[in-house]
């Protein structure tokens, strides 16, 4: 399984080069991998047995963090893996036709394969941290796929929005995972499921649940995080069909199902997940019905379907989880087909608005057949798998949690009516009725493109007529894995005359009515809809994004204002505040110490030392205060030589010599450079000078006191004695300072020499650089 996941990443790396070699055939070549994977997963699935523990593979990745690449092949992961690889195969081939002649098609395949591999990683991993890593990889590849038409601003914005919303959710989810791992003592899902009772009783249960749900809800576009999904329709249609209908958006559903044995079924779970799902379901279906752009319509209906699955998982009864799994499979089949068909319509006619489409069935017979099957499945018409799934969905809603059954059933029926209307808009309206004028003359798409809708439509029909094929097998195992116990899922085409069948009939009639009144209804409520959009979640997102930019600009302006003195002021105030406050807490000792040193100084300081100090202070003051450049240089020289004298007096002849040489050079340099500079000008006003003086004085006082404290205390034993003892024996030198520099710490001296060299080269380069001459030359050249 490790190879199954990683092969996608490997092929993604070479896909662009492969495309350069094979051109038109790349789609089929690249599609071979997902096809092979799909066969592999289906074979694994056919070997599933309720009595045998699922296959596990573990490879330690970062053991110290509890992160391992462990994969589990149970019903749930295999259902997803088969869908991901199967639809991945169709989409890979489809994109060859859809993005025919696009210059960056090779890159497209790389993104697509990267996404597929990440998604397989999410569904096959049983380690929470690994799930997170792959989860984020799907967000990143989704970003790349949505923004594939990166020349268009809408695409870039939509890509960023998807990344930000799902990325933020992902971070929350990671926090939840870490909490879960701490409480449960493991990051392996099956180990956590064994200790589920303890986890559910933990006081941290609610925070971790909410954090993880934030991840699942953002990924699966639950209200109010759904906004990114309709925007993501800016992506090329194959990406929309693959990521934003059948696979990635279901990652959140997958996570809910995967963690259901660990976190699910509690009152808190039901209280959060079920209403969020129900609201999303009704809201999405309603908004979908009034869309006219094909892809937007499909996007909102996807939001609604995701809401339905979330609601079912939130209910948490056995029947509801079974229904969620069946509904998921049905939705993946028909929604991918409809998206691919919508892409074909767009590709062949250049038109996306359903109001301007009609009668395409004659020109696009195969596409029309596939879309019709998928549309009928979406509407829940008998003989198609959508009908079977809807029946079991209604069944679950009718047997929902106490007191909720009526409300949930109503919500399910109402949104299913909207679904019927939406399905008619997308699968009936463009293909039948009177033909219309379109920007391009329509003719049937190449086989690479109609293959997807045709196969998926046939799938909806085949599984609809014989629901037992998959119901008794993979779907059953999936529901068992999600529930954490063995259950029996019986899918049948005909249940007899039951209340559920009545509800289906009502749905169909209501849906047809909704389709009929749709145009008038939408027109009548246009103002209301605009008003709702103006205060909707998209506005919240825009506001948050703009707010962040404003804050970023503001803090850059405040913190990085470009004035050296402001930076200095911040650093120094921090220094004075922190050091000063520490010093203040020891004010008594310090005062005593100062008085002691005063006494010692009175007794021991030689008069020439005092004289030197006075001269230094005067010179410092002169350097600050002097009005002419020459006086300043002279004062600076006096300070330098004075410091050299201090070195002489206190046993540092080497320092004194160096200081004198360097000081001389410095003074010469200063004179040379200052000769060319204008006289000192005073730029600052009196107030700012007083303010700077106050700050500088306080820093001076703090540093002075620190010096005094530093001379009086010794926190650690000195290491100097080592050099004193070893200098002659090891390095054969009697001048210890010298030996330290050239022997013990020779590398430091090497660094010092490097600094000198760099400064020298820099100075030379600066002197040789003639900016003005060049720019003047350019101006002459251009004029």
């Amino acid at each position, binding site marked *: 399984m490790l190879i199954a996941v990683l092969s996608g990443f490997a092929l993604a790396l070479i896909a662009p080069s492969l495309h350069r070699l094979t051109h038109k055939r790349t789609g089929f070549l690249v599609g071979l991998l997902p096809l092979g994977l799909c066969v592999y997963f289906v074979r694994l699935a056919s070997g599933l047995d309720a009595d045998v523990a699922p296959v596990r593979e573990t490879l330690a990745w970062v053991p110290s963090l509890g992160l391992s690449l462990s994969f589990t092949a149970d019903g749930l992961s295999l259902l997803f893996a088969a869908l991901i690889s199967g639809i991945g195969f169709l989409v890979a081939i489809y994109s060859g036709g859809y993005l025919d002649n696009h210059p960056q098609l090779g890159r497209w395949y790389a993104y697509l394969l990267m996404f597929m591999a990440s998604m397989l990683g999410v569904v096959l991993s049983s380690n929470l941290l690994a799930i997170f890593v792959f989860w984020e990889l799907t967000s990143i590849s989704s970003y790349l796929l949505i923004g594939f038409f990166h020349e268009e601003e809408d695409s870039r914005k939509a890509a960023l929005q998807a990344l930000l919303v799902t990325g933020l959710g992902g971070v929350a989810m990671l926090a939840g995972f870490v909490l879960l791992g701490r409480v449960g003592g493991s990051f392996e899902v099956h180990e956590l499921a064994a200790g589920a009772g303890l986890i559910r009783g933990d006081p941290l249960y609610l925070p971790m649940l909410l954090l993880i749900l934030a991840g699942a809800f953002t990924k699966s576009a639950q209200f109010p995080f759904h906004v990114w999904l309709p925007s993501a329709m800016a992506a090329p249609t194959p990406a929309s069909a693959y990521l934003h209908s059948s696979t990635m958006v279901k990652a959140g559903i997958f996570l809910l199902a995967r963690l259901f044995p660990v976190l699910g079924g509690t009152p808190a779970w039901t209280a959060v997940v079920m209403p969020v799902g129900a609201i999303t379901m009704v809201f999405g279906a309603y908004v979908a019905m009034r869309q006219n752009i094909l892809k937007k319509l499909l996007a909102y209906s996807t939001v609604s379907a995701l809401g339905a699955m979330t609601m079912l998982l939130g209910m948490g009864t056995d029947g509801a989880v079974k229904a969620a799994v069946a509904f998921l499979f049905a939705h993946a089949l028909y929604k991918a087909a409809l998206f691919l068909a919508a892409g074909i319509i767009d590709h062949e006619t250049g038109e996306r608005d359903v109001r301007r489409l009609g009668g395409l069935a004659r020109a696009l017979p195969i596409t029309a057949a596939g879309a019709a099957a998928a549309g009928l499945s979406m509407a829940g018409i008998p003989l198609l798998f959508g009908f079977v799934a809807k029946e079991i969905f209604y069944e679950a809603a009718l047997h929902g949690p106490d007191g909720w059954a009526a409300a949930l059933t109503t919500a399910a029926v109402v949104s299913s009516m909207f679904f019927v209307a939406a399905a008619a808009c997308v699968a009936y309206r463009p293909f039948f009725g009177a033909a219309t004028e379109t920007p391009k003359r329509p003719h049937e798409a190449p086989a690479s493109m109609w293959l997807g809708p045709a196969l998926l439509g046939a799938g909806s029909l085949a599984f609809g007529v014989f629901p037992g094929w998959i119901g008794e097998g993979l779907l059953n195992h999936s529901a068992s894995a999600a529930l954490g116990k063995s259950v029996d899922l019986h899918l049948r085409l005909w249940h007899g005359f039951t209340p559920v069948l009545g509800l289906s009939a009502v749905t169909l009639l209501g849906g047809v009515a909704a389709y009929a009144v749709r145009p008038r209804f939408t027109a009548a409520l246009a103002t209301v809809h605009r008003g709702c959009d103006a205060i909707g979640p998209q506005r919240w997102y825009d506001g948050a994004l703009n707010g962040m930019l404003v804050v970023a600009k503001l803090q850059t302006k405040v913190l990085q204002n470009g004035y050296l003195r402001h930076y*200095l002021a911040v650093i120094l105030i921090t220094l004075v505040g922190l050091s000063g406050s520490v010093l203040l807490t020891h004010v008594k000792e310090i005062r005593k110490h100062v008085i002691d040193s005063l006494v010692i100084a009175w007794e021991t300081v030689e008069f020439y030392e005092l004289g030197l100090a006075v001269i230094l202070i005067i010179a*410092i003051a002169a350097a600050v205060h002097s009005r002419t450049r020459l006086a300043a240089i002279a004062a600076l020289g006096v300070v330098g030589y004075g410091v050299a004298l201090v070195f002489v007096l206190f046993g540092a002849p080497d320092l004194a010599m160096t200081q004198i040489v360097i000081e001389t050079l410095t003074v010469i340099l200063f004179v040379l450079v200052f000769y060319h500079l204008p006289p000192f000008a005073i730029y600052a006003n009196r107030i700012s000078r007083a303010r700077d003086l106050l700050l500088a004085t306080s820093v001076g006082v703090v540093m002075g006191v620190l*010096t005094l404290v530093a001379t009086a205390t010794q926190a650690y034993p000195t290491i100097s004695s080592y050099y004193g003892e070893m200098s002659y024996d090891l390095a054969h030198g009697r001048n210890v300072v010298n030996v330290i520099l050239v022997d013990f710490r020779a590398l430091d001296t090497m660094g010092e020499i490097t600094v000198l060299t760099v400064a020298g080269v820099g100075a030379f380069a600066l002197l040789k650089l003639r900016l003005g001459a060049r720019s003047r030359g350019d101006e002459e050249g251009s004029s």
Partner: protein
Amino acid sequence: MELVLAVIVGGLYAAGIYLMMRRNIVKLIIGLVLLSHGANLLIFASGGLTRAQSPLIAKDGHVLAPGSADPLPQALILTAIVISFAVTAFMLVLVHRTHQEAATDDLDALTTTDR
């Protein structure tokens, strides 16, 4: 003498920082030089002050006589003196060239890299 040295260090720091906060670019350099003097003296003082006992091993001895000045801070300061000279020299050339190109010594006038 520690007290006297502490006063000098404090004075050097105060003067250095005051000058570094001026708008005049030349004063900035003078301030930097004073500040490095202050830092050197601070390191020097922290090693403990001993009058006139250089860290030299006597001709007939193998180890440094006890009571000698601490060699380690001296080695550090020696490096620091040379490096601060390098920095000062580079800064001076930079100021010289800046003045040639921008014709100002006011830091506030040097707000952009493009003219």
